[in-house]
């Protein structure tokens, strides 16, 4: 467990040793801010809610988080440091969890920077903090699922670009699957909604924390991390 912490810390810090992290966070905040203040005219609607914020962010995460996860394993393979890491007394699962922890730290930092919105709401009006708390919990859950998928894709290749594209395609597929499927076949709605990330996320924004949704995201996250671990392992032992 100590190894996971050491690796997580290293990954988190190394995000900020390149300009990419700053660019990514800036773009994220600008897009969210534009939507909040300009598109949805926050000051004109007179509504103390973050509903529009919570509807935008997960869709943005579909493209944002794969970029955060893409280099985690692939870059190690490209640099050759993977061989070094894999010959240290560190297990494959520890490697994957360490990377995941670092990325989760980055996600937490990104989300922490958006806490200014609930703060504004609190100062100007009387928002439903239960719904806001639920929304943030949902964002952490769906975000960690996207990150786990991104790490899984990163473990499949030594190219960051390929890892990004795979990650973004898989994430958007899972996120939008209900809209995609039902566009072709209305009968698939029930199945599609069950598999779709967006329908599971929807409950959180209404302030409803349903165990089924929590378990859903945790299961998909764990599954992706397990696949990532096996992918790393198979490279080592084939």
């Amino acid at each position: 467990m100590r190894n996971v912490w050491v690796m997580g810390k290293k990954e988190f810090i190394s995000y900020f040793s390149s300009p990419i992290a700053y660019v990514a966070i800036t773009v994220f905040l600008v897009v969210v801010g534009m939507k909040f203040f300009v598109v949805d005219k926050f000051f004109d609607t007179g509504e103390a809610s973050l509903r529009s914020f919570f509807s935008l962010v997960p869709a943005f995460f579909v493209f944002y988080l794969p970029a955060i996860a893409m280099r985690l394993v692939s870059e190690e393979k490209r640099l050759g440091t993977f061989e070094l890491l894999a010959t240290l007394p560190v297990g494959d699962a520890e490697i994957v969890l360490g990377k995941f922890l670092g990325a989760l730290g980055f996600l937490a930092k990104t989300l922490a920077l958006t806490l200014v919105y609930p703060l504004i709401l609190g100062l100007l009006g009387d928002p439903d903090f239960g719904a806001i708390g639920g929304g943030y919990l949902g964002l952490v859950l769906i975000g960690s699922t996207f990150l786990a998928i991104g790490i899984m894709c990163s473990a499949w290749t030594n190219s960051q670009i390929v890892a990004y594209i795979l990650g973004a395609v898989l994430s958007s597929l899972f996120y939008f699957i209900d809209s995609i499927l039902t566009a072709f076949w209305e009968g698939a709605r029930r199945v599609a909604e069950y598999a779709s990330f967006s329908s599971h996320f929807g409950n959180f924004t209404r302030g409803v924390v349903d165990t089924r949704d929590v378990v859903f995201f945790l299961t998909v996250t764990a599954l992706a991390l397990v696949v990532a671990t096996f992918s790393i392992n198979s490279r080592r032992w084939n």
Partner: protein
Amino acid sequence: MSNAPSVPMIEVTGLSKRYGSIEAVKEVNFKVDRGEIVGFLGPNGAGKTTCLKIMTCFIPPSAGSVKIAGMDVLEKPKEVRRKFGYLPENAPLYTEMIVYDYLSYIGALRGLSGRKLKTKVGSIAEKVGVSNVLSQIAGTLSKGYRQRVCLAQALIHDPEILILDEPTVGLDPNQVVEIRSLIKTLGEERTVILSSHILPEVLVTCDRLIIIHRGQIVADGTAASLQERMAENPPVILRLASSGDGFGAKIAEALTASGLFASVRQRPVGIASEAEFELVPGSVGDVRSAAVELSASKGWKLLEVRRELLDIEGLFRRLTQE
């Protein structure tokens, strides 16, 4: 450095590795005892790196077994990995990381922490001569420093065994000398196995050489015994003035017919007016004077006679022909 020949530090038995249809390593057997510095020598693609990768638990063997300090790499990979420090080929580093942070990171994953980790990073950096670049970003280091930083990483936990894959490749001659003497110092208290494709390098650094060719061990012995073998029966090079087309073939025929040499081979020289022949003596002995006398009696214009000590290619040729 105990005298008791208890458990060998490295024990490789019947090791084979296939990549698809290619057999990279075939039935390799050797043992390395505590305190030995062993050079693993072979041309590129001979299977050196593959052997080292199996020893470090990075890839599994297809057949056979590798034991490090008595533990099998397949059964106890985690314990085995604690025993050695490894410098992979090309000295991989996290290019965006500061050298100090890099060494601390590897040290932490090796189980060090707090004050102990700090002093260890300092003392290792001192030992391998990277103290002055500790605050630099690893990606900006020269090849020599990269190599040394990566070596420092391999030493951070004071391993009993050091496994170094081509530790001097890509270094300039001065750096090569530095790294070599560093390895010699390190070998005083550790078991070292290093790979190389440069013969003189391993001759000066290692006590013992294992020569591997096409995945098989072709020689295993001390540097001195190997050097003796190389000096034994060296081929004689005979250079004559050529009188035109067909000269070379005619002379080669005459040299073979003389029965003085085990084999005669014409070598290309790139000058039309000269021809060169490699004469391998049949039994131990110097055939230079015989070659001179033969040339004189046949009336060939002699330009040069010399003995040629074997280079690594010659040695491989000889070892693999035997």
